[in-house]
């Protein structure tokens, strides 16, 4: 099992992602520079957080056209597990691998905090080992995390079980006081129709041991690892 971490100029969560896999999971992980054109040597991909290309124009808008993104799209098309974290989530929506867009937070403030998210589905390789309703504690750090889709698209996402995480309180109750960026439907993460591509604003790769504040992120990253292993064996 080998993870790849795609690195753009301006990524800053790349080393967190590499560490979380190497130290947290104990799996092999390789950096994948944005100018590369193949991810054939990887079994799962992480698109990390940061400010790719300075967030110029729109977050993720320019990263989307990096040479590596064609390979990422092909990997996703073939069913490979792809996790976009924060800026990686923004990049995946810009690349149209995920629905919707991420807008300026409702408060207009950059929000840096530990939050709770409720797992909404176990259909994705990233949540395959979690029960729907399970609550994870993860950090967020973003200025543009307000998930937006039209009400019709939102209904479609719900109907297709594509909403993967919602912001909640510690007990898994969803209400406006615990929606840090005013996302539609308190959405913290979504998947593509097939479920193999997931994007989320919280940072599982910054929660891989108690010494840094929590280790719930491993429940997402570890599930990917084991799900990918199973997929490879089939």
């Amino acid at each position, binding site marked *: 099992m080998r993870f790849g971490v795609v690195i753009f100029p301006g990524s800053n969560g790349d080393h967190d992602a590499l560490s979380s896999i190497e130290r947290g999971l104990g799996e092999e992980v390789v950096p994948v520079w944005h100018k590369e054109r193949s991810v054939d040597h990887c079994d799962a991909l992480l698109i990390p957080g940061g400010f790719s290309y300075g967030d110029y124009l729109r977050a993720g*808008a320019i990263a989307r*056209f990096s040479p590596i993104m064609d390979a990422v799209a092909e990997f996703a098309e073939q069913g490979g597990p792809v996790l976009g974290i924060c800026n990686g989530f923004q990049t995946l929506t810009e690349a149209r691998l995920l629905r919707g867009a991420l*807008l300026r*937070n409702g408060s207009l403030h950059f929000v840096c905090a530990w939050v709770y998210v409720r797992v909404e589905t176990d259909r994705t390789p990233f949540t395959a080992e979690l029960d729907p309703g399970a609550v994870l504690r993860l950090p967020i750090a973003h200025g543009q995390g307000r998930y937006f889709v039209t009400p019709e698209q939102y209904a479609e996402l719900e109907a297709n079980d594509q909403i993967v995480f919602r912001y909640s309180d510690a007990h898994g109750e969803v209400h406006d006081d615990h929606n840090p960026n005013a996302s539609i439907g308190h959405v913290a993460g979504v998947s593509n129709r097939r479920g193999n591509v997931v994007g989320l604003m919280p940072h599982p790769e910054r929660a891989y041991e108690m010494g840094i504040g929590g280790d719930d992120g491993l429940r997402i990253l570890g599930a990917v690892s084991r799900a990918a292993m199973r997929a490879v064996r089939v």
Partner: protein
Amino acid sequence: MSVKTDEVSPAVKHSYLAEVFISLKPVVNDPEGLSIRDGLRSLGYAEVESVRAGKYLRVTLSAASMADAEAAVARMCDQLLANPVMEIYRIQLTALADH
């Protein structure tokens, strides 16, 4: 003796300035615009009804005609400059004096 004339001369290109105005779709909540509106009201501009924030880009390009220039910039908007999921755009073209 005849001169060969079957070589196609390259189309004459002109310079254009495309001003691109990008804003959030009306259906998308715009907290930046709302907060600017509130700022104006707090300065005493009670007549302000709404503010929508957006982006303004100036693209200069060469094209055979204004219609070609507009079509090219529209493609740029659809592909990169605007995100059709959440944004709308308007293009205003001006012919620039040729060098």
